[in-house]
């Protein structure tokens, strides 16, 4: 069992490391989250691993909010004595983020799932071969809302 992570300390440390102004996201009822610029993800995870000894990525949750249809939101959900998340916002025509499978090999399946379901491109990794969708699926990422499919 590990001690609970100090979100404030984490926030300060990541801000320090990346030189960005970071905000907390308080939308989640029972967990903390920090909004991270997409290009600072690897730096943030580096801080997590080296300074906070936090390794457990529970999952990557992606979603497209009705209020912000122009962006895809990625929640990197961690566990270290308590749950917390890093929140990324990617613009929709070409959502793109660097892969973290060299830092966290266990992120492989989560990245592939997000890539398939939301059409997010993960750069810096070989490819994201189909994991869940059929090999001949050609209708685009199923979770993306488009004009035609909207009721």
């Amino acid at each position, binding site marked *: *069992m590990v001690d609970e992570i100090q979100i404030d300390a984490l926030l300060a440390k990541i801000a320090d490391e990346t030189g960005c102004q970071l905000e907390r996201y308080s*939308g*989640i*009822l*029972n*967990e903390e989250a920090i909004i991270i610029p997409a290009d600072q993800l690897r730096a943030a995870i580096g801080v997590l691993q080296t300074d906070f000894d936090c*390794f*457990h*990525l*529970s*999952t990557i*949750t992606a*979603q497209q*909010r*009705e209020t912000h249809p122009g962006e895809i939101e990625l*929640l990197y*959900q961690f*566990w270290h*004595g*308590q*749950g917390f*998340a890093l929140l990324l916002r990617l613009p929709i025509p070409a959502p793109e983020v660097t892969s973290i499978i060299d830092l*966290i*090999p*266990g*992120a*492989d*399946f*989560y990245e592939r799932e997000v890539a398939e379901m939301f059409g997010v491109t993960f750069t810096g990794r070989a490819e994201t*071969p*189909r*994991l*869940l*969708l*059929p090999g001949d699926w050609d209708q685009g990422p*199923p*979770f993306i809302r488009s004009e035609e499919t909207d009721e």
Partner: protein
Amino acid sequence: MNKISIPIGPHHPLLKEPLSMRIDISGERVLGGTLRLGYVHRGIEKMAQQRTYIQDVHLIERICGICSHVHTSTFCLAVEKLLEIEVPPRGQYIRALLCELERVHSHLLWLGILAKHVGLDTVFMHTWHDRELALDIMEGISGGRVSHAANQIGGMRFDLSPEQEELVRLNVEKLKSQVNGVLDVIENEPALRARTQGVAPVSADMIRAYCVVGPVARASGVDVDMRRDDPWPPYDQLDVRVITRPEGDAFARTLIRVLETRESLRLCEVLLENMPDGPVAVRSPRKVPAGEVVTRSEAPRGEVLYYLRSDGSDKPARVKVRTPTLAVLSLLPEQLSAIHVADIPVVLAGIDLCIACADR
């Protein structure tokens, strides 16, 4: 010898559910493998967004055919948190009781499958014979052997009558004595040990790198258990003993399940002993206030995570399910190297595959 690639799945006697692996071998040595899921992908996450919360409870029960109850419990818990309602103590206890019985049944099923995989059919038959009693107990509680339809948002859909409670108590006691014999055999059987000891060891560092959860992580000495680390009631009132083993090999993974079965039966007894009186459910409104919530519980295979976002309507805006199998499965290609072809079943069994969970 030349490298050959053997397909395992989507149809193979080894697999109870469809999964496709291509394993490269040279003679009797395994060089590596790749994995493909999705044969039972039903799009439950997407379907859940198009249905009401009340319908979703029943939809989510269909994610898994073994640990269906823990899925609905976690989902209901998430909705209850958004609604800011609390399940009455009696409802919590019955909910946890079913969770623990489900763990007993899942672990017994797994132990049987492991024995089958190494050609020890006798142990397989005996374990599954005892598992029947676990299923009977659950049937006595909910009327269903696998799908219980026991949860509703705000509590349980039914109460236990005093006679039912007594019957469950008696049967749990019977199951405990019955299962001890076969568990002893599994713990001490030299033939089983010869096939599992030292096979495909995984270090604690690997477990952390691959974010592995559940019994597989605990078998490598990583001390995680969401029942203790992130307890929802009544687990916060229970003293859950987390069992770990340092070895990390297939035998440790077997022992973990044996010991956890015993621990779960003990928890069942504690739950039955301290079962409070009172109502089992509170009324819940149909519409859920806007908000986001994350809940985690310990399924038989490890941490299951639900992320739920409500937009204030009677349908969820996003339901994300992370099942433990998906987390453990990422370790599989890594494990499938430098082992014997004959060890493939043992390695696969060690993971305790639930493909329907992984695919959703």
